[in-house]
C-alpha cells in the first residue's frame, strides 16, 4: 500500500505530463493546418505536371532515344529506397509504419537477390532502419533545421538522387511516405518514381515541339521527379502533424483517466486513515 505522500506525488507527475501532451496536441493542430494548406497549394502544380507529361508521353514511343529517366536502365538489379519519415517522435505509429513498409519491401527485394540501397529523409526512419540495414543505408538527409518544407529541400534531394542515377548507382527508385487522408488516418505508401510511371492521356493532338520532343522530355522529367518528392514531403509533413495530434489527444485522455483513478485511491486511503485513527481514539477511551 503506497503512502499518501507517494500517491500525491504520482498524481502531480501525471498532471504535469498531461499538461505537456495537451500542449503538444494544440501545437500539432496549429501546425497541421499550415501543413495542410501547403499540401493543398502544391497539388495543382503536381496535377498539371502529370497531365502535361501524359500528353507528352502519348506522343512519344519508347526507343533508344528516350531519356533513361522514362525508359529506365533496362534492369532492376539495384533498387533504391527513399524513406521519408519525421525528424521527431511522439507521433504514434507514424514513423514505425512507414519504416515497416520499407523494411518489408527491402526484405522482399533482398530475398529476390537484388541489391538494396536506402536513403533516409528524416532521422526517425534512419534510427529504425539502421538496426537491420546499417550497411544498406547510403545517405541520411537531415531536415531538422527546416521549419517549413519548401521546394528547395525537395530539389536538393532530387538532385542528389538524380546524380546517383546518372552515375549508374541504381536502376529503380521507390519513394516511401505517408499519404494524408485525414487526422486519424495516414496511409503509408510506396511509389515507384524512377523510371517514371506516366499514364498516357487519351488525347491524340498533334503537337509542335519547341525545342525538340526529346529535349523537352529531358528537362521535364527531372522536374517531375522533384515535384513528386516535393509532394511526398508535404504529404508527410501533414501526416506527421495529424498523427501527432491524434496520439497526443489519446495520451491526454489516458492521463485524465489515470488521474481520476489515482485520486479515487488517494481519497479512499485518506478516509481509511481517518477512520482508523478515530477507532483508535474511541477504543482507547472505552478501555479506560
Amino acid at each position: 500500500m503506497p503512502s499518501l505522500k507517494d500517491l500525491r506525488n504520482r498524481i502531480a507527475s501525471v498532471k504535469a505530463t498531461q499538461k505537456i501532451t495537451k500542449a503538444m496536441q494544440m501545437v500539432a493542430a496549429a501546425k497541421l493546418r499550415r501543413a495542410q494548406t501547403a499540401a493543398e497549394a502544391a497539388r495543382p502544380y503536381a496535377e498539371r505536371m502529370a497531365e502535361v507529361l501524359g500528353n507528352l508521353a502519348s506522343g512519344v514511343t519508347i526507343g533508344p532515344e528516350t531519356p533513361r529517366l522514362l525508359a529506365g536502365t533496362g534492369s532492376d538489379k539495384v533498387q533504391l529506397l527513399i524513406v521519408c519519415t519525421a525528424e521527431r517522435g511522439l507521433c504514434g505509429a507514424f514513423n514505425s509504419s512507414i519504416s515497416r513498409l520499407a523494411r518489408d519491401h527491402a526484405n522482399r527485394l533482398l530475398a529476390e537477390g537484388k541489391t538494396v540501397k536506402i536513403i533516409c529523409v528524416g532521422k526517425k526512419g534512419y534510427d529504425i532502419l539502421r538496426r537491420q540495414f546499417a550497411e544498406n543505408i547510403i545517405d541520411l538527409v537531415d531536415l531538422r533545421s527546416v521549419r517549413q518544407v519548401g521546394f528547395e529541400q525537395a530539389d536538393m534531394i532530387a538532385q542528389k538522387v538524380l546524380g546517383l542515377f546518372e552515375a549508374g548507382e541504381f536502376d529503380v527508385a521507390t519513394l516511401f511516405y505517408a499519404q494524408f487522408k485525414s487526422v486519424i488516418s495516414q496511409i503509408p505508401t510506396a511509389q515507384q518514381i524512377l523510371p517514371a510511371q506516366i499514364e498516357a492521356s487519351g488525347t491524340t493532338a498533334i503537337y509542335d515541339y519547341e525545342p525538340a520532343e526529346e529535349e523537352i522530355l529531358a528537362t521535364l522529367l527531372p522536374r517531375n521527379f522533384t515535384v513528386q518528392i516535393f509532394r511526398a514531403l508535404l504529404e508527410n509533413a501533414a501526416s506527421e502533424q495529424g498523427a501527432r495530434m491524434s496520439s497526443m489527444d489519446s495520451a491526454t485522455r489516458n492521463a485524465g483517466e489515470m488521474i481520476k483513478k489515482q485520486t479515487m485511491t488517494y481519497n479512499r486511503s485518506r478516509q481509511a486513515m481517518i477512520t482508523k485513527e478515530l477507532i483508535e481514539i474511541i477504543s482507547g477511551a472505552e478501555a479506560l
Partner: protein
Amino acid sequence: MATLNFELVSPERVLFSGEVDAVVLPASEGDMTVLPGHAPLMTTLKTGFLVITTKVGNGRRVLVRGGFADINQSGLKVLAERAMPEEEITSEALDREILQAQMIYDASNDLSVKHAAEAALAQLQEAKEALSY
C-alpha cells in the same frame, strides 16, 4: 470574341486561372504570343516576363524563371519553376534571384547552362533597371 483558357501555376501556388485574350510567353526560342485557337504546342520557358492580357491595352506582367508551357485545344497551361507577379517584385527579391543566377553561371562548366544563366542574368538586370524608374 473568343477567349483563351489560361492557367499559371508555380510549385507553391496557382497564380492565375481564367479566361484571357492573349498571353505573351518568354519561350526558350524567342518570345511568342498565344491567342485563342493556337495550334497545339509544347515549349520550355526561359527567364522573362509573361504578359497576360485580359482586355485590350491592359496587361499584367509576371516574372517567370524557367518552366514549361502546354498549349492544346483546352487552353494554355504554364508550369513555372518560379513566378513572381509584378506587384510583388522588389529590388531585394531581384537581387536574390540575380545572385542565384550568378552562382549557376559561376558553378557550371557546361556551355549551354552558362549561356542560359547569362541570358537569365541579363533579363533580371533589365527588370531591376526597369524597377528603379
